[in-house]
């Protein structure tokens, strides 16, 4: 167990190093990094000062050392636009992103799990077909377009919901739906295949042999076991949701980290862009690590493997 965790930790550290190297590499190698790191409209003297400050005339590995030591200290630089440390800015926006992701996740599970069960219980029936069309649409419709059309319909024509901003529950409905839509399709397919697998298992056969009514078999015996992989996927998807919400947050002017990234790009606020990308990667690496360790704790087959 300990060996497994140590190896897994090692992989994560390598991933984090490669992550910082990737970001560092693209910033330094493609053109003049001073132009990115200096505020838009800066003078020649400012440029020189930035070169001095970041040691851009020094060898690359020295520069990388500085870069990493700053990151480890939690120093992601200063935002040009907001004039505050980027990390502070990021952390102040994070709760909004988490809230939106949680709402979108709840929605996607509310839609995905029941429809997945219905599809699995009558395979190739009309419910299954509707489900297939639904999941295909989920994959093929850009989430931001779903958002735009919803604004057009519910805000402009009907005037029921506010088109942008945050604060009340009604502000959250449309962004949560636009974001959750794609994931609802994924959760539906997962529920369906997981249910199908469980329905063919020995203990479900036994439950049927006992003479339990089909409804009881499905709800009491099959559903609970089928739920495990779905919830695992949902857990990982929650992190992905936080990080893919850029376009949806932009459409609805939702003040989360996605919107922060967009502002960073729009205002040419490079420290913000760099920090958001780095922290997104860190978040995914850390959550993957936690999920793997949790798996190993639950399932001895994994930790004893190899």
């Amino acid at each position, binding site marked *: 167990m300990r060996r497994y965790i140590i190896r897994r930790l090692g992989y994560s550290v390598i991933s984090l190093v490669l992550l910082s190297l*990737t970001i560092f590499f693209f910033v330094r190698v493609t053109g003049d990094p001073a132009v990115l790191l200096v505020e838009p409209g800066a003078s020649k003297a400012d440029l020189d000062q930035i070169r001095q400050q970041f040691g851009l005339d020094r060898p690359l590995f020295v520069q990388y050392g500085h870069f990493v030591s700053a990151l480890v200290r939690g120093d992601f630089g200063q935002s040009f636009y907001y004039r505050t440390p980027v990390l502070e800015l990021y952390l102040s926006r994070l709760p909004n992103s988490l809230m939106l992701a949680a709402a979108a996740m709840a929605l996607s599970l509310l839609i995905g799990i029941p429809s997945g069960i219905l599809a699995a219980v009558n395979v190739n029936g009309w419910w299954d077909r509707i489900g297939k069309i639904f999941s*295909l649409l989920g994959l093929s*419709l*850009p989430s931001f377009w779903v958002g*735009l059309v919803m604004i*057009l319909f519910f805000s402009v024509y009907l005037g029921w919901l506010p088109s942008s901003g945050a604060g009340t529950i009604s502000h959250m409905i449309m962004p949560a739906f636009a974001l959750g839509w794609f994931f609802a399709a994924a959760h539906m397919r997962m529920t369906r295949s997981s249910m199908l697998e469980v329905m063919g298992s020995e203990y479900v056969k036994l439950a049927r042999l006992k003479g339990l009514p089909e409804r009881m078999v499905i709800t009491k015996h099959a559903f609970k076991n089928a739920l495990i992989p779905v919830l695992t996927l949902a857990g990982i998807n929650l992190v992905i949701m936080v990080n893919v919400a850029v*376009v949806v947050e932009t459409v609805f002017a939702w003040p989360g980290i996605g919107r922060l990234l967009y502002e960073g790009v729009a205002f040419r606020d490079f420290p913000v862009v760099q920090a958001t*990308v780095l922290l997104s*990667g860190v978040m995914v690496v850390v959550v993957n690590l936690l999920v793997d360790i949790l798996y190993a704790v639950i399932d001895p087959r994994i930790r004893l493997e190899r």
Partner: protein
Amino acid sequence: MAINTRTAPFTAPGRLALLRVSGFPIIPAAILVGIAFVAIFAEFIAPNNPEIGTLGDRFRPPFWQAGGSDAHLLGTDHLGRDVLSRLIFGARVSMIVGITAVLIAGVTGTVLGIISGYLGGWVDQAIMRLTDTWLALPALTFAIFLAAVVGPSELNIIVILGLVYWTRYARVIRGEVLSLKEREFVRLAIVAGCSKRTIMIKHILPNVINSAIVLATLMIGVVIISEASLSFLGVGVPPPKPAWGLMLADGKKGMMAGYWWLTVLPGCCIMLMVLSANLLGDWLRVKLDPQLRQL
């Protein structure tokens, strides 16, 4: 025709016959061919110049609504540009970006996947650690970052999307190579004294090409949506070039006034193209590659 095939049951069916029996998705394929045709001959089909408009003709609705005219069948945008013409030229942008980016991602990912899977050892470790790390970066976020670094242009977007998506190929292809490696024909090739390069090119590559093609069709939809998202955010194809994502961003300006056609129409085009590509990819997956069925 029908009698002919029935009286000669033992002849192998030709390629076209194969397509016919197995539920070939004819409508999605026709839509894709149609979009490709429109994209190639955009100059001859589009009624107006897509990049130049008349400011006096701003926000004209489609022809069937009050105020619309035959001059602009699908209306005009905030600069008075013809929406239909922009949609037609937009198909070209989506096609070019979608196909070339997938090609770059596919070739890079397949080559690295084969090398990683076949050679193993530290090469495998190095490539796979990089793949894992890049997969950890959310694709769109990574693409936005790269676009912010190198600046937006059509060529940059293609390279960026290629860079962002090759990792998915590398993962899948490497997995296949690992199982191919243990097969008889590869062992025989080693015994026969083939060099590693020959084995990878002559024996491994032909066996993973089906998976690569299936992945490519499934990936085109993802890449097109990514391009539209980047353009929508202002880091994709730069204006005034007509890209569907850019049209959606422009359309937002007229949305509150109820100019629905600027928002609805470009999105419908994206949906039509991505849906068709996905349906075709789904069919190909079942057809060409039983191993990928549960993907």
